């Protein structure tokens, strides 16, 4: 066992650093640092996706015959770590990390040929149609219905918490095509063009002041049956497969570390009257840093297990649970570090295009919005309570 990089890995690290230095503009970097939500706005995120695609790195997790770069786990680790360290924009993960793997795993040849290149190039922007107003943690109780009419489905219902639905031109959705004996039966996985007549989108403002999520309504929306992925009624299986990618495929610790670093730098600066000189703050920074160390090591252990063909199992739920809890701990610490500056509210968005002087130093602008929006970390992608259910069932057998 060895945590250090060998010569080839160091050379790859240089390659990644060189790529980032050539492509990451100051504007992208500032916009990313001043985005208090999980996702970059598409103008920033998709510009980065195009740069990655031009390099052949548009989809690090995909198999090589669909355009993946064929990296070793160590290379994947280096790429994610260097990206986080440099502060690159977030790309459209709903495309690259969620629907992409499902289409690769279960899509028809036509679907693969049509959709995958458009995800890689950034031509398509995807959103996720899972939750409904009446179906949160109990997702499989969903009621949005697709009724067969010739070669089409006619869809009626509504989806909620749809991140970036107002930017997306495509949605992947779980819809009910029949009523089975169990509520998980009769669900199908469907790809929807967001410009189809009958779709309306209502913005939902979150407590941090951001418009990130939406409610989407479907009124007699006609979608070709050819847009269904896999078999009719098997959508729950595909949907769960996707959730494992959503929860556990990422390397989150590098970003957490950068987030903590930004807070620690504030704590060490005169802007906060050197908050770090309070032993309480200094110790809490260490506690969070150690939690990140543990998560990082678990991620490395999972990478090693995947490399040897082992199945990490319910560990994706451990990663999701701890990642979300630590992210909240970082943001909570941030609010405590900036002191009285936490009282000022900046309602304008985006924060990187303000046309006035904010009430606080720019370094602090995202701190309170991130804390407030960040309450969602332990809710989306399966609440912490659902993750504990999964750990108990899959790891402990109870």
């Amino acid at each position, binding site marked *: 066992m*060895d945590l250090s990089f060998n010569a080839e890995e160091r050379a790859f690290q240089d390659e990644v650093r060189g790529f980032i230095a050539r492509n990451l503009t100051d504007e992208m970097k500032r916009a990313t640092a001043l985005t208090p939500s999980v996702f970059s706005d598409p103008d920033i995120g998709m510009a980065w996706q195009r740069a990655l695609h031009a390099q052949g790195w548009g989809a690090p997790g995909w198999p090589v015959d669909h355009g993946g770069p064929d990296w070793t786990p160590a290379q994947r680790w280096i790429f994610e770590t260097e990206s986080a360290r440099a502060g690159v924009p977030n790309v459209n993960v709903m495309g690259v990390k969620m629907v992409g793997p499902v289409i690769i795993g279960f899509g028809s040849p036509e679907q693969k040929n049509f959709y995958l290149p458009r995800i890689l190039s950034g031509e398509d922007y995807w959103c996720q149609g899972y939750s409904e107003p009446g179906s949160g943690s109990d997702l499989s109780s969903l009621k949005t219905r697709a009724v067969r009419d010739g070669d089409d489905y006619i869809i009626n219902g509504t989806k909620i918490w749809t991140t970036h639905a107002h930017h997306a031109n495509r949605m992947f959705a779980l819809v009910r095509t029949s009523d089975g004996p169990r509520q998980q039966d009769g669900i199908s996985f469907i790809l929807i063009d967001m410009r189809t007549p009958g779709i309306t989108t209502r913005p939902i403002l979150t407590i941090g002041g951001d418009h990130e999520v939406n409610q989407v309504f479907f009124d007699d929306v006609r979608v070709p049956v050819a847009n269904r992925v896999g078999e009719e009624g098997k959508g729950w299986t595909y949907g769960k497969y996707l959730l494992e990618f959503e929860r556990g495929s990422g390397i989150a610790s590098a970003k957490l570390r950068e987030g903590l*670093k930004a807070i620690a730098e504030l704590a060490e600066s005169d802007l906060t009257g050197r908050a770090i000189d309070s032993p309480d703050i200094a110790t809490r920074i260490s506690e969070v*840093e*150690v939690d990140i*160390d543990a998560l990082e090591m678990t991620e490395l252990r999972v990478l090693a297990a995947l490399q040897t063909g082992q199945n990490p199992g319910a560990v994706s739920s*451990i990663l999701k649970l701890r990642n979300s809890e630590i992210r909240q701990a970082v943001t909570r610490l941030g609010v405590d570090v900036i002191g009285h500056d936490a009282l000022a509210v900046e309602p304008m968005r985006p924060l990187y295009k303000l046309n006035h002087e904010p009430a606080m130093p720019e370094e602090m602008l995202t701190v309170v919005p991130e804390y407030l929006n960040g309450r969602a970390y332990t809710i989306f992608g399966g609440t912490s309570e659902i993750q*504990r*259910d999964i750990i108990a069932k899959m790891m*402990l057998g109870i």
Partner: protein
Amino acid sequence: MDLNLTDEQRLLRESAERFVAESYDADHRRKMANDPLGFSPAVWKQFAELGWLALPIAEEFGGLGGSAVEIGILAEAFGRGLVSEPYIATVVLGAALIERCGSTAQKQAILPKIADGSLKLALAHSERAARFDLAKVATTATKTAQGWRLAGSKIAVLDGHAADEIIVSAHIHDHRGPSGRIGLFLVPATAPGVAISDYERLGGGRACNIELSDAHLPEDALLGNGHDALPAIEWAVDRTMAALGAEAVGIMQVLLDTTLEYTKIRKQFGRPLSANQVIRHRLADMAVQVDEARSMALRAALKVDADPVERARAASGAKAKIGKSARFVGEQSIQLHGGMGVTEELEVGAYFKRLVAFDTLFGGSAHHYGRHARLGRTTVPA
């Protein structure tokens, strides 16, 4: 970067787990708890035959040149069995300090005897007034015409009662007075002026307090050439904390497994305890913390030879985090066993007490988060 076990490491894990499962059962533990020595010389001999006593010692001194990862593998298995042999004191702390500080003659004289099981060591460093501050030593070693005169009081000497030689830390006073350097001295357990009072240790095994009153030692009792030994002591304690962390992981895993089984069998209100979501979530949290502890112990082991700040932060981070997890897993194991968990009729309490001892040894979570913070922020990549 490589995080997979080698074939040799896998074999070591298998043989250590097999040994503990076959030879270290509840009867054996009960017997050891009532034994004045607190461990079995026969088992120690087996450790020697299995090559475990030689594991971290360099090949030129009769060892196998193993790394902290292998020590961790062994320690985790020892934790599962609540092994009480003086392995940490002799092999992890003692041999490491001899190898790092000793002269070639001292290494040649001592290390092969550790490897073959004929010599046991202990480290006498902690003092009551120092609390967990490794730099604080009031014991003195004064240069005399014949050698050295040691005076002072040491506490919490792990397995000191069983040691043939005790490594004692003391401030060196030479002919010019206090030198500001800490020296390490090899003190035979039977030397005049050395009073050992041993006691039963929380969670198994034994420890002792040592009074040194004008203990006269020969010139060559000093390890090496008298350079300040504090960096070596910190280095050895950091390595030891990594090993103890792995041991704690083994203990926690047993508590988790045992408690899980109990909640499946124990019925109240007409159904197993595990049918309740509040119990399932508690067990899930315990499982998460055991997993995090495993990551931290491995991380500390992989960084024992990093630069001193990185090594110390990894060791303190692991000690603090695993200590916190150990208390949680231990306390919840008792809670979920109900009244039976508080009795000596189950082994849950013995495992819990060993975890409390682990958390306390070399300083608890608060101390180590503080040390981690004092040593500063680091963005050193993995």
